[in-house]
């Protein structure tokens, strides 16, 4: 089969799910006639019409709130945030309304909020964010952040079919750089399962999204230059975390480095470290290390952005420290 990009894989998932289920519809800013800021939804309007591909006012609260209301009534809305940074404008609706709906009112709220996330693209403070940690902290939401084209498609299809609200983070750096070969047929990847992206025995790098590729590059370099066998665990789903996969890799290598592009304080690496302490402390041969972004709003200039964000060399450095401990 032909290779498709990460972005095309997401688009394939949208087409297939809209074809499969007439209750699936898309709404967001500029997603119809224009096809979305990144053209993810290109072609959807022509095929499915204005009833199912809705260009909305610039109103993230209303978009998410309306999706929730429609979801209660049996629809399957897929919301696009033009940039995931703007999800902050819908924070109240997602955390107070959507996340609590099933618990407080037994209301189903099957919906997806998806959007371009992450940095390394010179997007500046408002087109580069990774706001996943705040939502991982909110009971009632699921959070997915794929690194490969195959997972992007399979996880989005799973998200659209999920009975609860799934936040689907798409890394915009990967949109057109990463390609994959889609398995034939109905390709669905289960939510909540991590993936071993590279087998190894000396130390483990636990990561997700764009930094999976940094970790893989670092692993390659460490094998060549240091003879180290590095395992890379791609979390894929951040809520719920795959505890079994995390514990398995800890028990296998006894040394753990957690890498994420999100800022450090309150980032998911802290949560994973705490879980390892609780579930597998006696299996550790070294303290868990973190490579993350600095606690800084993401700046625009290449020299600044590249300094703030984690890079392959940082991962290599941390892995060597861990191996030497």
């Amino acid at each position, binding site marked *: 089969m032909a290779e498709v990009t990460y972005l095309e894989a997401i688009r394939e998932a949208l087409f297939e799910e809209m074809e499969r289920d007439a209750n699936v519809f898309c709404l967001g800013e500029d997603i119809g006639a224009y096809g979305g800021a990144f053209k993810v939804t290109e072609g959807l309007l022509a095929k499915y019409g204005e009833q199912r591909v809705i260009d909305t006012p610039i109103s993230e609260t*209303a978009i998410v709130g309306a999706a929730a209301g429609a979801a*209660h009534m049996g629809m399957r809305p897929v919301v696009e945030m033009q940039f995931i940074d703007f999800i902050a404008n819908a924070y109240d609706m997602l955390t107070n309304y959507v996340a609590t709906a099933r618990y407080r009112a037994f209301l189903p709220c099957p919906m997806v909020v998806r959007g371009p996330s992450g940095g390394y693209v010179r997007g500046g403070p408002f087109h580069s964010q990774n706001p996943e940690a705040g939502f991982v902290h909110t009971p009632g939401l699921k959070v997915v952040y794929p690194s490969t084209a195959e997972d992007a498609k399979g996880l989005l299809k799973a998200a659209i079919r999920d009975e609860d609200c799934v936040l689907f983070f798409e890394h915009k750096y990967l949109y057109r750089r990463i390609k994959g070969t889609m398995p034939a047929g109905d390709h669905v990847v289960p939510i909540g399962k991590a993936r071993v992206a590279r087998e190894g025995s000396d130390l483990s790098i636990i990561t997700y999204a764009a930094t999976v590729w940094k970790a893989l590059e670092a692993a390659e370099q460490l094998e060549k230059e240091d003879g180290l066998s590095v395992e890379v665990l791609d979390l894929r789903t951040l809520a719920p975390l795959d505890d079994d996969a995390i514990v398995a890799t800890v028990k296998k290598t006894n040394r753990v480095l957690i890498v994420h592009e999100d800022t450090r304080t309150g980032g998911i690496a802290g949560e994973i470290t705490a879980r390892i302490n609780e579930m597998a402390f006696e299996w550790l041969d070294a303290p868990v290390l973190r490579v993350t972004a600095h606690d800084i709003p993401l700046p625009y200039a290449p020299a600044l952005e590249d300094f703030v964000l984690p890079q392959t060399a940082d991962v290599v450095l941390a892995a060597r420290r861990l191996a030497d401990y």
Partner: protein
Amino acid sequence: MATRAKGGRAAPARPAGTFDPETPGSAAALLTREQKLELYYWMRLTRTLEERLVALYRQTKVVGGLFRSLGQEADAVGSCYALEQRDVMSPLIRNLGAMLVKGATPVEVLKQYMAKGDSPTRGRELNIHFGDIGEAGETRGFLGQISPLGDMVPVMAGVTLSFRMRGEDRVGLVYVGDGATSTGAFHEGINFAAVQRCPLVVVIENNGYAYSTPTSRQTLAKRFVDKAAGYGIPGEQADGNDVLATYDVTKRAVARARRGGGVSLIELMTYRRKGHAEHDNQSYVPAGEIERWAAENDPLDRYVRRLTTEMAVEATELAAIDARVTQEVDEATDVAEASAFPEALDALTGVYAEPPAASPLWFREGGRGGVTASERATDGWGVYKPDAKTESRVSQEDA
């Protein structure tokens, strides 16, 4: 004021008794005597049920706060009476009357307030924060609110968007207070619904206060209904303490929505005679204001006068309704009081469809631990006092 009426041109003459969304009074004129007595029943039930809740609150049987709609029964009851069962309504905290009209029962409300295990939310949510929505005909059609104000407007935009998308003959109605009009969610939701031509009626209950803040500090607009022009939708203001007026204005907006006319905004003028909740002493209210509304503009008193003077209803008929209401509330109270509180472990169920329940944390496994009797005592756990020995050691170190 129906802003849709063509300026300067006389409306075509219509025979009396014909309903027309743009003709004020044409909906109320069609109410039967039986329906008018039903309106009285719902208003009386609202007031009597709240009075019962006050008694239970004073007996500390109401677990949280108590929110009254005293003096606002007509706006809630009359407006919701304009809906059909298949329609969906989202209330605010002072819309107990609307909830009852839409099919919520006194026993459900009492159990909610008393945090009972078989209350509609199984003890998860407070007061009238509960609902029943889904397929038309299978549900009563009211959607529980959440506390952040204005949020239900976007949600009801989505509920009614689904009606439009599926070609269902259903309408939505969402209540907001004067305070909620200042929120971003109100603006975004009403604008979204207007652009999408959702079959939605937005009712602003202007009761003069949002907690302690008077409407003069919410907006410089002379009337909230004037905001309709900014959204390109019709707006109409009505006397919220006249139950027939609130029914009439809403019935016409609902009909407009049903005919594909999109969103309408209604402002019902009323007055909040009690505080934000029972604890609120209303110290911020000018002297005499509450008493004046109570004496001159009580919606039940006004309606009783109209029923007896204009509609030939006998006082004995109303007394019979009052007795029926009291009996219903008495029976509901007995049932609610006899209900059990929820089992603690139920707290961990139903956050997600899958998994259906979370596991207790290790320090609570097997039902171990939890709050002790002394922590639950009236002086509680926030008043920890170090014992004398510790205290003297600390003071020695300080010295």
